[in-house]
């Protein structure tokens, strides 16, 4: 697939960001290739109600 991009004047005033988190990217410039991946898991077994049991000791 052929793809043409024409970049003309780009002027930005103020940028205010609270948080950039979990494999995010804030870029002022050009890029060739960006790959960002996040896996966030909170399965049912992640809520444990009962007596204190430690996780496996490493």
């Amino acid at each position, binding site marked *: *697939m*052929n*793809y*043409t*991009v*024409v*970049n*003309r*004047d*780009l*002027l*930005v*005033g*103020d*940028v*205010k*960001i*609270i*948080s*950039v*988190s*979990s*494999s*995010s*990217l*804030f*870029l*002022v*410039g*050009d*890029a*060739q*290739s*960006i*790959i*960002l*991946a*996040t*896996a*966030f*898991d*909170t399965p049912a077994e*992640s*809520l*444990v*109600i*009962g*007596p*204190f*049991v*430690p*996780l*496996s*000791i*490493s």
Partner: protein
Amino acid sequence: MYKRMSCVNNLDIVSILFSSVCQIGDSSSINSSVKVLAVQREFPFFLGQEGKFEDYKVFTEPFTPPKHEFNKMLVINECPAIKVNHVKIIGVSSSSVIHIGSNETTYAETRVLNIRQLSGDHSPPAKDERL
């Protein structure tokens, strides 16, 4: 490839943590990754050496990167600069990237698992019961 210049007058970041990057200037390749095992307990008992990443699927399953769709991309830069006056960021966390300038490739990976342990009706273990 001909790239543009990035001009930022003022950059204000409060905190950068957990394998995050703040890059000022051009870069060729950035790889950042983080694994987080977040354990929240009703009573704050932590043994220090607890938890193995291999025990959980979320840390071991590989990501399959998407294929590039644009084989031929022609870029015409009519203006040689990107200008930004002021950037204010409070937090940068978990393998995130703040980049002022041009970049070839960026790869960032985050894996997070949350575990919550509540005691129910049980009282916290006595000091000598702990390992």
